[in-house]
């Protein structure tokens, strides 16, 4: 029987939750890296026991961790005991070095972006928000960082190189959202290895068709009348999350700061699909594993009140690719609930029926083994959940 493994990043450590394919009984393992902020963990599709994790701290900065045994043991890449005594001498210890590439050959000048007070501020690395392993090579992994940029490692996380062309796309107009100027979503296209979508708060969606050398904005149709002086600006939109079904990489879904949208042309244009949602503010959005027109969001009351409307935690599902939404409430608290669900804290497994999972800022991780029809808490009292990823293992 299949196994499901959830990788949960929290404000004070990482947790690994495992279950068999029934998804009724769960084993909770952790905390790993207790006390550290674990922004994101994700497994390689090419080698599910290869996991990458972003470990951060205001005191000690960024650390990248890697596991080669499904999360039983972890090392900063290049510092396993055998690496420390290896024939190549001591490692350089650069697995946590994220330098913006200003080289003449591949880089761009260290330019500036907008700051909260309207002045320009030079790019400054703060942390890794999201790690996206390659679909085919366990040693290749992308990192989305704050201040917003995309890095790639091709040596299993030992060293990182910025794909600097992204900063060139009107980067002077990008600005931090309340959480910082973060590159939080990286989507790889199974059908076209040269194409990558990324999303930044608050800059928008960008697409490359040449493996990351050059980029262009993909924000046509987004309207941000409350956030931007020009609601239709080419860049500057506060995109919270984008999602796609792997079988249809030209169809994208977006939870913007306000508004839920879709694109049917690989981001060339977007149109709103908020429909009958009680509020179209929110953070995560995800797609059913087997039904590409079935999508999920978690409506949040507003950008000034980061909790669900009416104290009711409700996932909304559309089976029609948007516009027509139904509330999924069975098993979720329907009174006095004032948690948030962050952008990277929802995931779907690939079993049938499809499983859904999300974590809250209140430390609960909820799971559904039937596409969202009913829910149950897997664990209730973790630290605030930053991210949830799921692996479906044979």
């Amino acid at each position, binding site marked *: 029987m299949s196994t499901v493994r959830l990788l949960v990043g929290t404000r004070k450590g990482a947790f690994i939750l495992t279950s068999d394919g029934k998804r009724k009984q769960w084993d909770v393992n952790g905390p790993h890296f207790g*006390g550290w902020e674990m922004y994101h963990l994700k497994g390689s599709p090419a080698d599910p026991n290869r996991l990458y994790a972003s470990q951060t701290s205001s*005191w*000690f900065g960024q*650390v990248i961790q890697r596991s080669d045994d499904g999360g039983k043991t972890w*090392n*900063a890449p290049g510092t396993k005991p055998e690496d420390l005594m290896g024939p190549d001498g001591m490692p350089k*210890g650069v*697995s*946590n070095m994220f*330098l913006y590439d200003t080289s003449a050959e591949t880089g761009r000048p260290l330019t500036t972006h907008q700051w909260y007070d309207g002045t320009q501020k030079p790019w400054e690395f703060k942390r890794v928000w999201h790690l996206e392993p390659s679909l085919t090579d366990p040693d290749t992994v992308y990192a989305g960082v704050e201040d917003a940029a995309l890095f790639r490692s091709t040596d299993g996380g030992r060293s990182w190189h910025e794909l600097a062309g992204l900063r060139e796309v009107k980067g002077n107009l990008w600005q931090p959202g309340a959480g910082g100027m973060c590159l939080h979503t990286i989507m790889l296209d199974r059908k076209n290895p040269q194409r990558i979508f990324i999303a930044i708060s608050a800059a928008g969606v960008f697409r490359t068709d040449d493996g990351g050398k050059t980029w262009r904005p993909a924000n046509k149709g987004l309207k941000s009348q409350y956030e931007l002086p020009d609601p239709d600006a080419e860049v500057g939109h506060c995109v919270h999350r984008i999602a796609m079904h792997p079988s249809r990489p030209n169809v994208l879904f977006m939870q913007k700061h306000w508004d839920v949208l879709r694109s049917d042309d690989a981001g060339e244009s977007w149109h709103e699909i908020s429909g009958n949602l009680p509020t179209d503010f929110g953070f995560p959005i995800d797609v059913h594993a087997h039904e590409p027109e079935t999508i999920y969001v978690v409506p949040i009351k507003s950008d000034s009140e980061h909790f669900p409307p009416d104290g009711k935690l409700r996932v909304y599902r559309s089976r029609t690719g948007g516009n027509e939404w139904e509330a999924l409430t069975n098993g979720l608290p329907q009174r006095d609930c004032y948690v948030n669900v962050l952008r990277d804290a929802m995931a779907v497994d690939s079993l049938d029926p499809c499983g859904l999972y999300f974590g809250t800022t209140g430390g609960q991780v909820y799971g559904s083994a039937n596409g969202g029809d009913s829910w149950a808490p897997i664990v209730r009292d973790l630290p605030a959940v930053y991210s949830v990823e799921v692996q479906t293992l044979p």
Partner: protein
Amino acid sequence: MIRVVLPAHLRTLARIDGEVKLDVEGQVTQRSVLDALESRYPMLRGTIRDHVTQKRRPFLRFFACEQDLSHESPDAPLPDAIATGTEPLLIVGAIAGG
């Protein structure tokens, strides 16, 4: 032999129990001690001082012999008691956050 005491999180990261004991070539300064520490424990690079600028991370302090040496030059000689191993260099996480 130079003695260094690290914050708990960095001891965990480097898999160290208790104090670190280091041999330091030449003059004993913040820089030479940290160079020796990072050479022995490469996973600590970037966690105490910036990879490139070599500046101390803002929430860390360097204490020794009941003095705060955080704002001393990284190339200033450390007190004799550190150089002789009588006292440890304390790398301390600032009290901040919740």
